[in-house]
């Protein structure tokens, strides 16, 4: 039996019929056509399937599609609609990613971090990122971009005197 689910994905409204066991990751990728959340382990270990659910990061491989009825989802496609965010720009400038498979998940995790903690310390960035595996970069260029983005945002919103 299908369940009716109404949700917002990157600001657009969707009504879908989903099976009780269908995973959000699967539904996003094959029904909604949003490909940035990636399967990496499908059991909650890698973070490559991360999406923002009402602004909070979740692993879409651990969420049932029926659970998001009435909620809002943001994927990395939704962040860049009006051009790259400050964080994304710094990541491009610093060549933060290599293969890029982990990038959508990491961008969202870092976006969430900066929303709740606009001036994180390095170790706080590391702790926030530690649920998103990256096999390529050694993480340093990613952490640097997050810190640079935070510093730039702080400089533009609250100029130091």
């Amino acid at each position, binding site marked *: 039996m299908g369940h009716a689910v109404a949700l917002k994905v990157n600001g657009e409204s969707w009504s879908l019929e989903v099976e009780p066991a269908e995973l959000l990751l699967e539904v996003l990728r094959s029904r909604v056509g949003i490909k940035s959340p990636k399967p990496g382990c499908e059991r909650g270990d890698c973070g490559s399937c991360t999406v923002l659910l009402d602004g909070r990061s979740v692993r879409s491989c651990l969420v049932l599609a029926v659970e998001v009825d009435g909620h809002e989802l943001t994927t990395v496609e939704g962040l860049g609609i009006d051009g790259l965010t400050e964080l994304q720009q710094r990541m491009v400038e610093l060549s933060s990613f290599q293969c890029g498979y982990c990038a959508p998940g990491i961008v969202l995790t870092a976006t969430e971090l900066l929303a709740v903690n606009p001036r994180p310390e390095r170790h706080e960035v590391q*702790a926030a990122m530690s649920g998103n595996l990256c096999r390529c*970069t050694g993480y340093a260029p990613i952490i640097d971009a997050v810190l640079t983005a935070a510093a730039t945002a702080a400089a533009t919103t609250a100029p130091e005197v």
Partner: protein
Amino acid sequence: MVDHTFVGHSTPRIDGVEKITGAAPFTDDLDFGPDLLHAEVVASPHAHARILGIDTYLAEQVPGVVKVVTGKSFQSTFGLYLEDRHIFAQDRVRFVGEQVAAVIARTRTAAKRAARMVIVSYEVLPAVFDTDAALADGAVELHPDLADYGRVPWFHPRPGTNIAHWRKLRKGDVAAGLRDADLVLEDTYTVPRYAHAAIEPHAVVAELSVAGRLTVWSASQSPYTQRNLFAEALGLSHRDIRVVTPYVGGGFGGKAGVTMEIIGAALAMTVRGHPVKLHWSREQEFVNTYQRQGLRAHLTIGARRDGTITALQHTLHWDAGAYVEYGANVVNAAGISATGPYRIEHVQLDSLCVYTNLPPGGPYRGFGYSEFTFGLESHIDRLAHGLGIDPVEFRRRNAVVGGDELPYGAQMNPSGLLEAIDRAADAIDWGIEQPAPSPTVRVGKGIAAFWKAPAMPPNAGSAAFLKFNEDGSVNITVSGMEIGQGYLTAMAQIAAEVLSVPPDRIRVETPDTDRNAYEWQTVASHVTWGCGNAVLAAANQARDRILDTVHRALGHDVASLYLVDEQVRSTTDPDLALPLREFVVTGLEQPSDGTFKGGPVVASGSFMPEFTSTRSDPETGQGGKPNVHYTVGAAGLVLEVDVETGRIAVRTVALAVDAGTAINPVAIEGQIAGGVLQGLGTVLYEELRFDDGGRLLNPTLTDYKLPTASDIPDRVIPIIVEVDQPDGPFGARGVGEHTMIPIAPLVANAVEDAVGVRITSMPITAERLYLALTAEDG
């Protein structure tokens, strides 16, 4: 050093925006519509067994199932260097997880359900899980048909045993060299199996059109090699196979050659007109691609009091797994270079590729060098200490330099090993003791050197196509693979330097064998060099065409013309400033009569190392020139050991690598940061563990721990040494794999420096170190 406009300048990746926005397509992201079928394999539960029968009846009854395919439909063998594999097991299985059959269904769920309902009956056979057991007298023979397998001429199998290849190297007289030594040290080092664990699992979609054309979309480092093996194994013409490889989510060798992709291609042959998709789960990714081979290395080195190494004897037993079609070449590469980057008069290397009933071994970043360097660089350190010579000084005294004779007779290329050793040592304040932060913590420093050559057939070629667009931008199609290393950007920079068109106005496309020029494979850290030379040739050809057009249309002497800022300028006519965009497609109008000269500028380039040869004496390894060149380097590390727990905290790693010319310094720094952490994972905690039936115990990312953002060293210091590679594009050579190679012995050496304990088995977990520490106390 020559000053270049684009080469040598840190350039943001040209694929950066695509990746940061989620727009970059990976194989699993491609849509194929409602026609798409899904496949699931039936895997062997036994490490070694005879297949008595396969009953597919029940599986075929599952709603949605289209077909169940077994080995009966595909009987040919395949393999990159040694044809010892079948697409599906034939009469026997040789590892837990080997594909015996596959189900094709309308949905993934139906395919999975039906795969569980295929009934295979087996007669279990005795199995071998390590090299000692496999080499023992009377050991069960895994491949009785070894003698009949097709292979490259430089492999030397021993039919009747489990030795698939034995690479020997003999130089001088090792016994005499050891007699001549003041100190001879002998020990055995063990390295377990490891997983590449790229975050993207393998995926393939294949479709045989109704008209008989096979298209394969795969997450692969090797589109042309895949096409070639598909053609041979499936009996199709190369012309009728198209392999498309979108972005790859991490390779590290795990997506080189052909593994599960051939299952997808074969299944497509059975359901004409339908695309079929096979997507590995994480568990399958661990078990049925390639694993890094295990190694047991026995090492004897002698040195004189003055610090000269007199002789080295290195016997390497590789646990290569059930099929070694690619892995045997890892063994081969080690068997000619397991001296490390040292000048040694008397050498004996024996590198044995041993079949075991574990998953197939294969290429992994470092290609054998990461494995043998653990023991070798540990041993070098111990010798230095034994002789009372500073380990940095000991390495310097024996370091190979350009022009030296290599163990197999060829000459060493120009290289900056001494500079690398010095700079790595300086960066960690070698020789200066660092205070411990607390009474239970000991600080240690380590040093290690490395080298590595690309391991390739002597005729591995690269090619490039280049075309100008109406606005003066450029498209390049090559078939090297962007697997994260920044290859697309490096190719754009090389073309940019010749054409004066900035890299961000150059698009370099991922491979499609219908349209992109040839590339052997993206492995061996050779594409910056090999494919870079092809792109350079194509760019030069395009430039020549542009200048020729200007000469023919306007009469300028070609020798006076040059390109700068996307214009043609002249050394003799300061007024000439012709923007490329005005004529690279539409031609140049002749002032005299209004006719046009020129036309769309297209160019091609191709490259092959014409000086290599693998012809050598099988008994001595002497002769030929199996390696195009070596990339060398050194690294230093500072760590802290908590003696109460055995826990290691890595503080600083400085890694110096000789890039020849750094095409894109920021990309090399990225390779250093990434390679260092991948190396730390292998030496500190990663390890594939098997039960006594050959079943992998930790096939998840919960139980196979990868380094996270919290596990990184405090500081990684990248050091780029630049001693030109004379035949490289702008002097460049590859560095991608190398940054991982010295890390394991580096930690082992620093641990000994810190706590005086020598660990000879990887990984050096807190538990292993703690037990060693307490044993020492007792």
